[in-house]
């Protein structure tokens, strides 16, 4: 419906006041010193097993033939490319949306598009080499291909696309070669423009969309009917989207891939305006790899109802006053927090770019957070504690096998998320090169997992919160149970700040009582925030979402247990000037509503 972006994690590129990154706040790393009863972790990660390769679809052979033809022609040119890749995304989408028991959308679309990646120069230095003043990542063209068959049309599109991308690459390469003012590197770390990787040949069976549309239309309509019990709440919608996608990749190194996945997502949204004009929104989504994995209609409806209940409670809740003090981030909220505060800053391509803040560029080997914390990103993880993970894949969009990127071990920064564009000192990809069709690949998060070595029970976590409240002589602490999304600024001339939008926030009083508050914003700087983590609980939760950045939208997840931070800075949300409706909601039936006094 109105705000489909609610559960979105976003990396913003605004230009704000100049402020250098703040890298020297040791914070209060008191966690190690606390003497707490430890509790066993409840974390089970199910890794995907790569099935036997099947026969390739005819499209892969056709693409290979076209690639060979292009290669022969391109080899005669000056400059000749040293690498060409063709990636085809074949997508089928179904979206069903209902509101107040009425169907709004039942749409279906299929498309097949081509991305061409073409490199001129050498792996040490090529047309993608950084040019000072240029930002990384870009929108490229995605070329429409025939939906099926169409050998001659395929050939025609590939030819035109290759020609166009060659012109672009050549023009860029001439600029790279003409560049004379490049700074000499200040360190001796090895660097390059394109990593050397093994070629892979692997085909998964192609998945097809199998959706009983009539059945699911009825179910979504039925779920949306829950709104009838909350007529004072203004807007709500329930939607199902099923995306079935097969990506095909061939390149001049001999890689041939055929990978198929299905993303099923139920989106539930509720929105109203509080009496003071504040817009209150709750969003929930259920992400699975298959329709069969979705809960039944009653369970989905129950989740929808709980959003309405939350909104009802939020309407009555008091607006928060500014606060600095300890807080618990529940698992899902902590996941979003790590995605924004940490995940976007360890993307490999941000470490070299002169226009990036490079928060972590020179911190490999240094302690950056609680020594018991380990963080990795693992796209090969299919499920966590039984929950399907959104960021799952077998090979990335550059044909590199998905693998666990060990980012933090024992609180020490260990590495970055890497595509085939190397970072200083890291010359191999770790399978995190991702894109939405039509964008240039960059390193992205997939399944981020915060995995502490030592954990306590949630009850212990709360008791530590309360003792921190007492120690800091505060009237209460805070607990964040849901964060709807956020954004972060990584560019050098930005504030380097992050912002997340918490929606369910509770004051926790010394007697353990909790009180819902609204209108909360968390802002901060990443290194400071990370250094404030004191203790982790053993209750892992998964946040599945979509993440937008330079290379478009990609599905991701972030998993974390609940965390206690010694200090969180909270501001009151900017006042919105929305106004509640003047007339009461139309009542069921056709009897006129009582006339309002003027």
């Amino acid at each position, binding site marked *: *419906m*109105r705000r489909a972006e609610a559960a979105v994690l976003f990396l913003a590129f605004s230009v704000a006041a100049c402020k250098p990154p703040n890298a020297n706040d040791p914070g209060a790393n008191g966690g190690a010193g606390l003497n707490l009863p430890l509790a066993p972790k409840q974390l089970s990660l199910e890794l995907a097993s790569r099935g036997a390769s099947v026969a390739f679809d005819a499209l892969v052979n056709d693409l290979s033939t*076209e690639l060979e*033809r*292009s290669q022969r*022609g*391109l080899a005669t*040119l000056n400059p000749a490319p040293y690498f060409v890749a063709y990636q085809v995304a074949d997508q089928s989408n179904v979206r069903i949306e209902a*509101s*107040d*028991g*009425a*169907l*709004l*959308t*039942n*749409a*279906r679309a*299929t*498309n097949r598009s081509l991305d061409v990646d073409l490199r001129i120069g050498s792996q040490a230095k090529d047309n993608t080499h950084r040019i000072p003043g240029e930002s990384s990542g870009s929108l490229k063209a995605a070329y*429409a*291909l*025939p*939906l*099926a*068959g*169409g*050998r*001659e*049309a*395929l*050939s*025609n*599109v590939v*030819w*035109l696309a*290759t*020609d166009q991308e*060659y*012109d672009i690459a050549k023009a860029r390469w001439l600029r790279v070669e003409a560049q004379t003012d490049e700074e000499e590197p200040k360190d001796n770390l090895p660097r390059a423009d394109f990593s050397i990787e093994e070629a892979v040949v692997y085909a998964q069976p192609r998945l097809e969309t199998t959706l009983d549309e009539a059945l699911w239309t009825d179910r979504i*309509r039925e779920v949306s009917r829950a709104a*009838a019990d909350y*007529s004072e709440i*203004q*807007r709500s919608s329930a939607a199902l989207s099923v995306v079935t996608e097969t990506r095909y990749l061939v390149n001049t190194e001999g890689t041939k891939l055929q990978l198929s996945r299905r993303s099923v997502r139920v989106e539930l949204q509720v929105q109203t305006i509080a009496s003071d004009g504040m*817009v209150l929104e709750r969003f929930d989504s259920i992400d699975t790899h298959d329709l069969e994995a979705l809960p039944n209609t009653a369970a989905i409806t129950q989740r929808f109802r709980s959003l309405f209940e939350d909104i009802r409670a939020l309407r009555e809740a008091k607006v928060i006053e500014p606060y600095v003090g300890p807080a618990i981030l529940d698992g899902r909220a902590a996941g979003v927090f790590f995605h924004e505060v940490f995940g976007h800053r360890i993307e490999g391509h941000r470490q070299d770019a002169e226009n990036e803040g490079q928060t972590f560029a020179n911190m490999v080997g240094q302690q950056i957070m609680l020594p018991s914390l380990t963080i990795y990103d693992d796209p090969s993880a299919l499920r966590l504690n039984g929950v399907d993970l959104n960021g799952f894949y077998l090979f990335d969009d550059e044909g590199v096998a998905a693998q666990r990127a060990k980012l933090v071990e024992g609180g020490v920064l260990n590495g970055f998320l890497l595509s085939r564009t190397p970072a200083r000192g890291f010359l191999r990809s770790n399978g995190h090169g991702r894109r939405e069709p039509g964008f240039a690949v960059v390193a992205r998060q997939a399944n981020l997992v915060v995995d502490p070595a030592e954990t306590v029970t949630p009850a212990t976590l709360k008791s530590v919160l309360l003792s921190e409240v007492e120690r800091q002589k505060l009237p209460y602490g805070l607990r964040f149970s849901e964060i709807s999304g956020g954004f972060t600024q990584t560019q050098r001339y930005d504030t380097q700040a992050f912002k997340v939008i918490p929606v369910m926030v509770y004051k926790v009083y010394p007697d353990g009582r909790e009180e819902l508050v609204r209108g909360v914003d968390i802002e901060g700087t990443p290194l400071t925030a990370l250094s404030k983590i004191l203790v982790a609980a053993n209750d892992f939760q998964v946040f599945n979402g979509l993440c937008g950045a330079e290379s478009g939208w990609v599905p991701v997840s972030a998993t974390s247990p609940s965390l206690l931070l010694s200090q969180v800075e909270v501001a009151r949300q900017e006042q919105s000037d*929305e*106004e509640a*409706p*003047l*007339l009461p*909601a*139309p009542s*069921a039936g*056709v009897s*006129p*509503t009582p*006339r*309002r006094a*003027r």
Partner: protein
Amino acid sequence: MKYARIFALGAATLLLALASTARLNAETHGSVRVDAAPKAAPKVEAAGELPAELVPLVSAMDQELARSMKELARPNQAGPYYLGYWLLEVVHQHTEAKLGALLASEKGHTRYFRVELRVGSHDVDNSNAYPMGFGDDGMSFGVPLEQAPLDPNLQASRRSLWLLTDAAYQNALDVLEQKQAEQKSSSRLSSQAADFTKETLRSIITPKAQPLPAQQQLEEQVRSASAVFTAFPEVHDANVLADAWTLTRVLVSSEGVKSYEPSRFVRFSVQASSQAADGMPVVRSAAAFGDVDAGTLTQLARQIAEDVRRVRNAAIIEDYNGPVLFEGEAAAQLVYELLGATLSGTPGGGSGDSPWLQRLGKRVLPAQFDVFDDPTLEQYRGTKLWGGYAFDDDGVAAARVPLIERGRLRDLLMSRTPNEHRTKSNGHGRTAMGGWSQAAVANLLVEARGGLSRQALRNRLLSAVKEEGGEFGLLVRALEPREYSTSGAAAPQPQLIVKLYLDGREEPVRGAELFDLTPRALKDIIAVGNDPSAYHTTPLVAGIVPVAASIVSPSLLLEDIEIRKPSQRHELPPVLPRP
């Protein structure tokens, strides 16, 4: 489906509901409402009936309209003086093919509610204030729009209208307050024109539209037409597209109007491009409106392919000053670009007042010309017209408007937004449903006395060339089709231009650019054909529905046109041979 039964009485219920709406409006609630109430129940012109599946949505419109007009008001402020609810149903089919293969095949079905709400008075209200952008609640340029149920669900429809109306009202008050503050502080003279015309409207209900072609048929047509290009290797890229729409509009307004009109619209397009040996791009595109058969579409594709082949091998034009004959469809498009796109009498807006507003009564064309716009016509001298409707997007009945008589400008196209010279609409308010309506062409027809045959017209061109001591004249056969006119922007560039030598020989040329072409050029038309040809276009695109227009004109010979060879550097030809 339970509501369908309750409201299945159809047209009879509709008429009863109409009467009750009128009664509700007759009640007054404070002085501001008086002029909103019609003197009597409006006339109804019913040639069809509202389909049963829309009845619950329209009932919701009735109920919320009555409730809002009666009760909606901020404390101590007036409620709306006008409320118009639109239900828009759009069915859109799209297919696209290249070299015999399907690139896209889509079909969509969407409904929208659109709420046009006015506070203040006809003299000064919240319209004509140009609020920019799309805000919350689908508020687009001051007129909120939101998806409406595909189910016959009365209660969900009422909720949707309730929230849209509230958003429209609160926004309208803010806009009006801001507008009045600006008018007070502004030193410039405020416009004498009011904001909304007073009209006596009638309800109009038209028959159902014919069904759209089957999706499979549209797929097959574009596929087979696109296969034509396999025989033309010198064409680098070519697509054939089909778009078919049914657009159903229902208006229920506080003036007592309840109107319903479904319309239907099919368009095929062929787009082909290549590069000459020197790299200069060669582009040719054309559209065919209506249910053209497979053979006609294939023939059009072949024609386009042959044009590209011919132009690609043609010599580059040299700079030229002199007479130019615009033949057939190119003449109709020229009339649209130079005249039709700016004949709107709607004041202000992004592009400013119509350049014609101050020329009312003056000569703008040679005396043998008459120009009128008539949305009530379905065809003109055997040519099907696509710009027609029974009522415009203000709910005003379509009417023929004589615009130019004996070369003199008599009138402009008017919506319900008046200007300093015109206080009534003439049934030409149109919008793609992206904001307030504005006046725009529907079916623009150019007639001229003393039309010549094509051959006589060419002879006239050659005698003009001879007089000036030239060796050849130019024929423009096709201009680049444009989705809409960006008035004031560069003229559309010729896609097909031919040298006509004194001995009657034709030679295609490429790279011609029309330079400095303004509406004044039309005053110097030296001869006209007797061959009315049509150009169909979509003049308004900022919105969610297609708005079609047809322009019919004979061929036109213009006395003094400046044509230049291409000024831009172009790409290199493809580095790889075509597979």
